[in-house]
């Protein structure tokens, strides 16, 4: 039995989601709450499997799994290395905690009858992302990207406000454009090489980088993925989508979806395109660093002017995606590890922040920053967690925020991209400003009479405990950073060492 699980672990991480998504509505027929347990068990299983994969590839060589036993260029291949199993663990962990969190918040935010459908779509959403991460086939990546995107549109539309439909529609249009660009890029690559397997593509593309077909393919793929990643100025779908979706979805999406798109770009840049000097004198690395810098600063600056907490967090997420890009684009071991660490760290911080915002919404049905005055008295625990998370976002030592920024700066100094250092420091300052504003309202203002419209007296334990776990980890991994740091350093070594032009 155990044998079966270990040999088929790569495909099982995806299959559990497909079965879960099918079973959730069936169980929902019997009893509404059964669908919740279905989602809980599915995400828990996938988390266990991902961690198992991470440990096995960390200690041994990367795993290759052939679907149906078909050899790579013909069949679909799943390939697990440290880079993607690390992100697999992050995504499944965040989705697992979000489900726990949802036990309390979904009841108040989504109509009772829709619960089974919600969980079913939610599992597809996460399962799609897991698929993107694990597959080694570029067309398969597109398929999973569409699965997760379509599920995402539905989830956003389940928010209770009227704007949710607008936000979902907006994302639908822009997301489809992005996915189509990605598909066109894949088409061009297929035209040039006749293969879809990444390993195969990398070999066959050698020497063809100067052809216009490949250049166009790269342009389409990069722009399409940047749209999915919400890189400035292609970010317009993201703030509304995060703001008007249900609290669980904001939390889960903030921790996962843009990061998976970032993974796609990283994987393609490193594995098949030579990021640094691959072709025709274009400094790929430099371009991405400039775009990422602009994204970091623009996201932080726009966040300052927001009046809604969730929107502020959304713009902050846009800025933080820039960190991941900037770290991974520098082609330096430490910077890459920093960017990878930021995937984990930002997933924890931002998910927890959205969870706290959801807690405020649960109690007062508002996330306007001005309505949060005096919350330090009324919700001391939630406000304290918010304070810790804000410090972590700013990058105060002993929190995770510091660790990833430290490595990115270290890598920037080593590889000579000095421009990155002031960008990161400046954005830390801006982060301090926009979080400082909220913290100030929480702790130093007296609550106004207007927010007496208390919806629920007490926040359920499921919401508090899942947030508390993340906050605890934010400090734990900030102090005992060895484990994630070593994993990401090894991942960085492997991925940089295996670049095709070397």
């Amino acid at each position, binding site marked *: 039995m155990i044998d079966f699980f270990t040999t088929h672990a790569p495909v099982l991480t995806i299959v559990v989601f497909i079965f879960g998504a099918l079973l959730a509505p069936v169980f929902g027929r019997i009893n509404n709450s059964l669908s919740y347990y279905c989602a809980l068990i599915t995400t828990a299983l996938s988390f266990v499997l991902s961690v198992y994969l991470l440990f096995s590839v960390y200690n041994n060589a990367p795993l290759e799994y052939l679907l149906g036993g078909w050899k790579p260029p013909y069949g679909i291949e799943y390939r697990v290395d440290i880079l993607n199993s690390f992100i697999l663990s992050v995504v499944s962990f965040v989705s697992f905690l979000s489900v726990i969190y949802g036990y309390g918040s979904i009841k108040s935010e989504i109509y009772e009858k829709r619960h089974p459908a919600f969980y079913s779509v939610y599992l597809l959403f996460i399962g799609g992302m897991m698929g993107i991460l694990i597959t080694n086939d570029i067309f398969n990546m597109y398929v999973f990207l569409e699965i997760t995107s379509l599920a995402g549109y539905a989830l956003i539309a389940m928010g209770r406000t009227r704007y949710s439909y607008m936000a979902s529609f907006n994302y639908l249009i822009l997301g489809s454009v992005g996915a189509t660009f990605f598909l066109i890029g894949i088409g061009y690559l297929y035209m040039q090489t006749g293969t879809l397997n990444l390993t195969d593509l990398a070999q066959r593309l050698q020497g063809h980088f100067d052809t216009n077909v490949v250049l166009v393919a790269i342009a389409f793929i990069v722009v399409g993925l940047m749209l999915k990643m919400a890189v400035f100025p292609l970010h317009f779908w993201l703030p509304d989508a995060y703001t008007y979706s249900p609290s669980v979805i904001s939390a889960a999406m903030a921790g996962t979806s843009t990061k998976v798109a970032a993974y796609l770009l990283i994987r393609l840049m490193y594995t098949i395109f030579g990021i640094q000097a691959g072709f025709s004198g274009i400094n790929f690395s430099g371009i991405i660093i400039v775009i990422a810098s602009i994204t970091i600063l623009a996201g932080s600056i726009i966040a300052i002017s927001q009046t809604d907490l969730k929107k502020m967090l959304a713009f902050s997420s846009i800025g933080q995606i820039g960190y991941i890009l900037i770290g991974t684009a520098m082609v330096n071991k430490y910077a890459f590890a920093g960017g990878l660490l930021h995937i984990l760290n930002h997933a924890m911080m931002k998910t927890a922040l959205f969870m706290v915002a959801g807690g405020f919404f649960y109690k007062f049905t508002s996330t306007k920053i001005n309505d949060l005055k005096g919350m330090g008295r009324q919700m001391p625990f939630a406000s304290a967690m918010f304070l810790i998370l804000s410090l972590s976002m700013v990058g105060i*030592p002993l929190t995770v925020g510091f660790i990833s920024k430290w490595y990115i700066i270290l890598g920037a100094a080593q590889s000579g991209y000095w421009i990155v250092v002031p960008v990161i*420091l*400046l954005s830390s300052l801006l982060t301090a400003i926009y979080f400082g504003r909220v913290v100030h309202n929480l702790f130093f203002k007296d609550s106004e009479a207007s927010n007496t419209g208390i919806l629920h007296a007490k926040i359920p334990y499921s919401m508090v405990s899942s947030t508390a776990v993340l906050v605890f980890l934010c400090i734990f991994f900030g102090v005992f950073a060895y484990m994630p740091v070593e994993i990401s350093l090894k991942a960085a070594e492997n991925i940089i060492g295996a670049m095709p032009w070397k």
Partner: protein
Amino acid sequence: MEMIQSLTPVYAVLVSLSAIIPIYLSRNNPNLREFWTILAAIVKFIIVLSLIPPLLKGQTVGINLFEILPGISFGFRVDSLGLIFALMASFLWILTSFYSIGYMRSLKEHNQTRYFVCFAGSLSATIGAAFAANLFTMYIFYEALTLFTYPLIAHEETDEAFRGARIYLIYLLGTSIAFLLPAIIGTYLAAGSLEFVNGGLLAATASKGLSSTFLVVLFALFILGIAKAAIMPLHSWLPNAMVAPTPVSALLHAVAVVKMGVFVVLRVVLYVFGIDLMSALGIGTFLAYFASFTILLASIIALRQDNIKARLAYSTISQLSYIVVGVSLLSLSGVKGSILHIVVHAFSKITLFFWAGAMAVGTHKKYVSQLSGIAKKMPVSMAIFTVGALSLIGLPPFSGFLSKWYLLKGSLEAGLVPIAFVFMISSFLNACYFLPIIYIAYFGKISPEDEKDSHIKEAPKMMLVPMCITATMVILIFFFPGIVTSLIDLALNGIF
């Protein structure tokens, strides 16, 4: 040097941090709550005292708690420089706690629990920085102090208080992230470690061929980043922070916060760069002239301040630069005078702030011009003020004389005659802004309303006694300088 693994420094930091819990829990019983504060203060002082004997035996007490990243660890190491700072801060915390109780209750301030909680937290941060074994640990406590003191400055919760607190936060957090952190990263890149080393961390690696431009830029980043030392042009947070209740201004803005600033400067000059590297690069002299500018300008601005606390604040800015100039002279007497002045100025200035608080409680007066003839009604307070003021002017038999003596000697040893003149002119300016207060309080005519007003009387004993103790210390240090100088000599042993 022998290194003893011991958790004592950790306990010294944790005492006040863990006192926060009982203080918060007993928020409905003020007497019990204040009992915890006093208890924590006394226990903390005893723990710090217990660190003296091993130091005198030539042992170093310390511990590396955990290594966060390779070369960056979170650890404590007690040396005599840190011990001087910790002794001073923890001793004055006991006095300030009593004083705070008197002050806060007389004025019936709101939110006293938050006040005492944050005060305890600030002290933990201060002691943590004093015992920090490396730049990283020190940076953490440096930031922690900024964050803990923010609620204390915003205590009044008026628009003015929030404005002051915001400026405070922007200056201190802003500079520390924008300049101090890059400086620390630069040090790490150059040296591969952040530990404080006798004779200089960077000096040990200077042979690796680091360009002098890099080192000069690094030093400039450090000095800009340590805005707590209030060197101009990054000084204006201090006068703005004076909106805080007076005990806060007393302990934090004469002792803990600003002294942490100059303490970090000392650490950087003596233990990161090292005397030799500093003089080889010529940045010591540059810093001395740069900070002299602050000494003179701040004194001149202080002349024009009518608000008592603003005048004291500018005086503090000026006196802090004495310390910076002293250490940047890089001569034995200069550094000695600089460390001595940390202690002397702390005792003298806290006396003056205590006096300002006593005035606020006893008379509700905040301006120098209102103090005419006040000595008749408050003779004890004015006598205490006189002691503090004369000490800062530098007259014997008050301890301010000693540190100025060493500073003057140090500037001549270093061959910087203009700096000696700066010290003398500044003493004259100090006299110009302190003596008028003494003059009008004793010889001015008391206004008829004040004469009749029976509310004007000495502050409660809870405040007067701590004031008397600090004033006595100001005189005692003059007669028995050995208490401080023996520790200073120990600190300078490994450096000169």
